[in-house]
């Protein structure tokens, strides 16, 4: 049993962070180091700005679809960023960053945006180094949907919350599962399938790309 499981606070070993990065990159997750939440938001907006207009190219915009599926696509009017669990200050900042970019921000009622969200920003509670996995409490429906329907999913992960293996999180995860209606997601890389001729294809139902925004140092301390 590691010290973390005994409830002691221990500095995260840099080897563990290294392992986390390696394993996450193995499954095509993109890792971006950021100094703080402000920098993370600026990065997210930048990615969204440079994304193709209706990035649906990778998501299948030009595909020949049935009329019902086409109609869903047309419900989406502008580039959209969502960040359901940002605090008010951070929302203000995100709003300011999006000014004059043509990007709209959405914080709730994601059910109205099932046609597609360009970028979602959420927070991970933990990282698991052994598999490059993010643990996200997605009980809130908007957080849940953000992680599922966005084309690019960006996850803020404080480096000090990375553990070596899932086994090191048994106590924390079990506590989460005690609460009624808890929906906890372990996410590793983008949505993928190999169901046609075993050829790997990303973004079959969920995000096409996963960014991990790793916050290290003082600012990475979880609140």
């Amino acid at each position, binding site marked *: 049993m590691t010290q973390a499981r005994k409830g002691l606070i221990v500095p995260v070993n840099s080897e563990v962070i290294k392992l986390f990065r390696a394993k996450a990159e193995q499954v095509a997750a993109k890792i971006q180091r950021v100094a703080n939440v402000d920098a993370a938001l600026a990065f997210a907006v930048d990615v969204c700005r440079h994304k193709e207009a209706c990035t649906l190219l990778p998501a299948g915009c030009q595909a020949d*679809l049935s009329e019902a599926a086409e109609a869903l696509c047309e419900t989406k009017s502008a580039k959209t960023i969502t960040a359901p669990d940002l605090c008010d200050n951070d929302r203000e900042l995100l709003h300011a960053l999006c000014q004059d970019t043509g990007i709209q921000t959405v914080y709730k009622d994601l059910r109205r945006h099932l046609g597609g969200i360009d970028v979602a920003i959420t927070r991970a509670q933990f990282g698991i180094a052994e598999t490059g996995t993010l643990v996200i409490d997605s009980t809130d429906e908007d957080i849940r949907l953000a992680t599922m329907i966005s084309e690019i999913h960006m996850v803020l992960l404080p480096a000090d919350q990375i553990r070596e293996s899932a086994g090191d999180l048994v106590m924390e995860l079990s506590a989460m599962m005690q609460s*009624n209606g808890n929906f906890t997601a372990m996410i590793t890389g983008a949505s993928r399938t190999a169901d046609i001729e075993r050829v790997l294809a990303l973004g*079959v139902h969920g995000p096409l790309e996963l960014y991990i925004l790793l916050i290290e140092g003082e600012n990475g301390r979880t609140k």
Partner: protein
Amino acid sequence: MAERNKMKDYHQEVGVALGNAFLRTAMDNFAVAYRTARQNAFAGLDPAGLIEDVAHRKDAAISNIDLLLARFKAVAEKKGIFVHLADTAQHANEIIATIAEMSQSRKIIKAKSMTAEETLLNHYLESKGYQVTETDLGEWIIQLRGEGPSHMVMPAIHLSRFQVADLFADVTGKPQNENIEKLVKVARRELRQKFIEADMGITGANFALADTATIGLTTNEGNARLVTTLPRVHVALVGLEKLLPSLEDALAINRVLPRNATGQNITSYVTWISGPPPWHGEPGRRKEFHIVFLDNGRRDIAKDPTFNQVLRCVRCGACANVCPVYRMVGGHQMGHIYIGAIGLILTYFFHGRNEARNLVQNCINCGACKEVCAAGIDLPELIKKVHALILNEEGHPLKSTLLSKVLRNRKLFHRLLRSAQLAQKPITDDRGYLRHLPHIFAKEHNFRQIPAIAARPFRDRWPALRPQIPRPRFRIALFSGCVQDFVYPEHLEAAVSLFAGQQVAVEFPMEQSCCGLPVQMMGEHEAAAQVAAQNVLALDADRFDYIVTLCASCASHLKKSYPALLARRPSLAPKAGRLAGKVVPFSSFCHDVLQLQAGIFAPGGPRVTYHAPCHLCRGLEVREAPHSLFRTAGLDFVPAPEEETCCGFGGTYSSKFPTISGEILKKKLDDVESVDAQCLVTECPGCILQLRGGAVRRGMKLRVQHLSEVLMERLKGN
């Protein structure tokens, strides 16, 4: 589902599968890629230890199913989850249809669930007028085709991109390009619409955690997340064997499951749902969450001391991935609904003996599945036991009754072999092969040359061969098995001569007979036990240091099966145990016991490659000894890429399924050809019969030899 009741029809379906070029290539590529992927995924870990841990945790859960269910239910109901228990598949379907009716659901979306396949849930719901859409890409594809899955993890592995493009053209009403990337995006967008419209979502579960009433779902696509989130009703259909005490157990299993299934360290999504989550689809309405636990015979299996281990299965599909028969014929011929080795067993329990009768005979007993099973289930043994159960229920076919009778009586058996030798004389060519097969065989059996029975069996030659060793290093008994005694006595002669040079005193107990594996393979358990008893007495292990056998199958049968076969005979069980302890295959004896040295061999031997007999490499875990002996004997050894893949013999298997056996052999010889060796060496007369017969039929220059012959040839002075 196709009718499987008649063996003739089954053979016909197998023939069609073997003729499907796309399927064959897809299966081959997969078999080869899987091996490497799994190895990489377990790199730096201890797979055997992890698997043992899984087996342990599952066993503990299985023996406590009722308790875990009660605990789960109590916690779940406090959380507002509706928990149901279905006794049968039909009952489960009815419960789910009732939930749909009560909640006024019309449109239903599904995530992949083998349990729902087991109950044929879609058919039932559709017959009640519900619109059901599968959302896992592979499942959606086969649903559109009206087929069942051909693999538990990759249900549409038997289909090509062209077939998928045609299907999608029908669905969208627009022509489709066969670009896979594009087809996946078409599915994404078509199905997104279905998610939005659905009233109810159905999933299975990989884990059901009793302490927090949590279900765990592992997926790569993320469809299960949408299925459980968007509709207002969620129903999870869960086999009782998925119950576990707590998260710790599930995490331990999940270290093995994805690595074993697809060579991934973890799937993209592992979702844990602990109660009805918030739902904002309609103001004022709450999410409705039902869990339907399915018994369908599971509680009875849990109480069966022999078969309870099948409930350990975590549905990773690895037993199909490594199965040489699956590789040839695909999942539709290698299972009814559950596929692969575990499918052969589960079919009997979940879908009845009518569906299982032919399937259980299509195991070649190579042991590849047992070696990779995520939960350490002894699959080949249980397949044989299911076969025996069916025979006991339905009566034994004439062929196996006759063979049982003959093998129980050594003198009769050997007299028959001798008269067969005389009878085949006129059709034996000058190389010792039969010019044509006796007319009772159909032409499918002609994929290899069959050797004639030797003019003089080893037992007749023995009195003249028996060496006199004044001060022996070891006293051994030779167990010949019937093939070497009657077809390849030269393997044994070479060994006797090699051993004499090493001061080993050899005895050949004359009362020994066939080891009994052929009747065991035919499900004739009682006959197998009687033959074992005769050999235990004949070999009288207490008189010897070792019992050496040149047949890997005999060695593994004597060592692994005899103690179990005779466990209930108090007078013989201890003796069988002592015999098992002394049985040693030829290569291990030469390498580990005699420790043959390079000095006795001439340098500069030919380029050889090796076929590892299934019963040696997996059955007895002897892998290094033959390699090392090649080097000691000065041979230029070059390993073949598929050294450990079965040759397709499988004893009586090759006569029961000659077309499959022939195709496995063809693959094997292709692989051997790729390393361009002069000689293929192996250590089992059955493999030699198959490989040599195939090489001769194919006109290859390759020599196929037993290790004993090769070592003998390389001795200085020979």
